[in-house]
């Protein structure tokens, strides 16, 4: 049977390395690698060598993942709950993008320039709004986790990123985890981006 846990984790993360898939899937790296190899044998994932390489889903893997998550969703009777949570998420999404932009760019006297993070007052205001948004996304995360337990990891990952102050910097930043949750919702509900 196809391992949906690792396949879907990879589908939502895109291309990434073994340690990151393992950490997000909540499995030891050795176990994750063994499952990835099985998926690769099925033609559902592939490993690209090189500096920007890593593990990623194949076209067949995306199709199979879409089929399996739709099946899982309907089996759990969770389509209505996930759809409703998705609608709430989309109300918050523009604000997350505004805030990520404000973290990178600051408009002074009508001129947008890179935020050099030397003004603690400004950064604190952005962070305060991030924290407020994070508080408001919590019910959405809770509703998703109640509908399908696998959504539970997003709340933890968002909190970890926020606690680290990694708003929109690294591959595990708040923005990127949010980006993956967005992708997950689209894939789960079968909505084209």
């Amino acid at each position, binding site marked *: 049977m196809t391992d949906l846990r690792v396949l879907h984790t990879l589908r939502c993360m*895109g291309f990434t390395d073994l340690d990151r898939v393992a950490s997000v899937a909540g499995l030891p790296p050795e176990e994750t690698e063994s499952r990835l190899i099985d998926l690769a044998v099925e033609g559902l994932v592939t490993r690209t060598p090189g*500096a*920007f390489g890593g593990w990623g889903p194949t076209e067949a893997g995306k199709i199979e993942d879409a089929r399996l998550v739709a099946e899982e969703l309907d089996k759990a009777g969770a389509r209505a709950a996930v759809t409703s949570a998705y609608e709430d998420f989309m109300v918050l999404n*523009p604000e997350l*993008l505004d805030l990520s932009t404000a973290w990178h760019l600051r408009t002074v006297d009508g*001129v947008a*320039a*890179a935020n050099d993070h030397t003004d603690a007052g400004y950064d604190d205001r952005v962070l305060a709004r991030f924290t407020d*948004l994070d508080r408001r996304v919590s019910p959405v995360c809770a509703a998703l986790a109640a509908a399908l337990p696998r959504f539970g990891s997003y709340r933890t990952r968002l909190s970890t990123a926020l606690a680290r102050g990694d708003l929109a910097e690294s591959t595990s930043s708040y923005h990127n985890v949010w980006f993956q949750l967005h992708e997950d919702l689209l894939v789960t509900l079968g909505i084209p981006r």
Partner: protein
Amino acid sequence: MSAIHALAPGLGLDPSVIGGKAHGLVTLMRLGLPVPPGFVIPTAACRAFLDDGRLPGGELAEAVGELAAVTGRGFGDPARPLLVSVRSGAAVSMPGMMDTLLDVDSIDDLRAAVRRVFASWNAPRAVTYRELHDIPHDRGTAVVVQAMVHGHRDEHSGAGVAFSRDPSTGERRPYGDVLPRRQGDAVVSGTVPTLPLDTLAGREPAVWAALMDALDRVERHYRDVCHVEFTVESGRLWLLQVRPGGLSGHAAVRVAVDLVDEGLIDRATAVRRITPGHLRAAAVPRIRTAQILARGRGAGPGVATGRVAVTADGAVRMAAGGPVVLVRPHTSPLDLHGLAAATGIVTTTGGLTSHAAVVARSMGKPAVVGAAAVTVAADRIIVDGRSHPEGTVVTIDGTGGEIVLGVAETATADAGPHLARLLRWAAEAPVT
């Protein structure tokens, strides 16, 4: 309860009372320019509404009655229906943060629309915007209600945005986008390919002449570069908004110096307008060429040259052999490794706060978003019906949003004659 005011040339109220949008419309009327008839519900009414949930009752019906008389139309009149737009307009502009409702056709719907716009002052996104831009939270927004003009009515209709000077370079030539047979929201959406403003000159010469006259009058009034939003309905030009200023970096420097040469402002004013932020922005390298393949919006400053890749996998593969510019309709997490491998990023949809733009900036890469004239096919990009295969060398400018074929020459504004003159004026008469 504060009074509702008909939009009229004689309305002498401050933007803090009637909002920036209404203030601009009154200015346009004073300059003899065409503005759809309407009225403004002041910011005080918003503050009252947020306080006790009440709207100006009888006054609203009265204002609608006057508008019906002026237009010869009425709500629910089957022969001559009155349709209105309901737009926010705070004292300080908060673009895109509050609600706009179009084609409202009854007094009940109008009340609901005004309520919605007032309530949108406190929408979390709007609160965030004010927090980040130092705008007080207690001011409220005015609401501008105007008779609708329809850009999608017939083949002599359309909508657009026009700058009195090129916002990217500051050159003295009108610049903008226009969409025939469409409403204004399509022009700013970034998802529909627009036509260059000057195509209007051939299609609708009378409208073009009226628009050029309007841009000239608003520039001389504000003594600054301006941009207007306009709609053409059955060959007739209507102005829906005017804003002065708003250019940055090199373009702002050039405009300030040119305005001195044109006698519109003095040297001290020019020096005052150019802040250290403008000078820093002017130091970012820019493409120096007139041969633009396509234009989007600059989303990550800097210039990048590389071979076009149209998939993330392609970008990763090609990056081994040299710099790559990844061109995508939009980006998803599946593209992240391609974004990491690419030197520059182009998307054909999306705005300055899209995921692609945020990711590009987090990686410090030049990016152009919303290049709607570019189509991404399986192994090539298509612009104006011409194919450019994967591997074609392009240069992108993440400040001005330009995409050009080949390796483009770049320049910074620091050595330009405009900046040199401005700095000399600043040294001669220091501004305190």
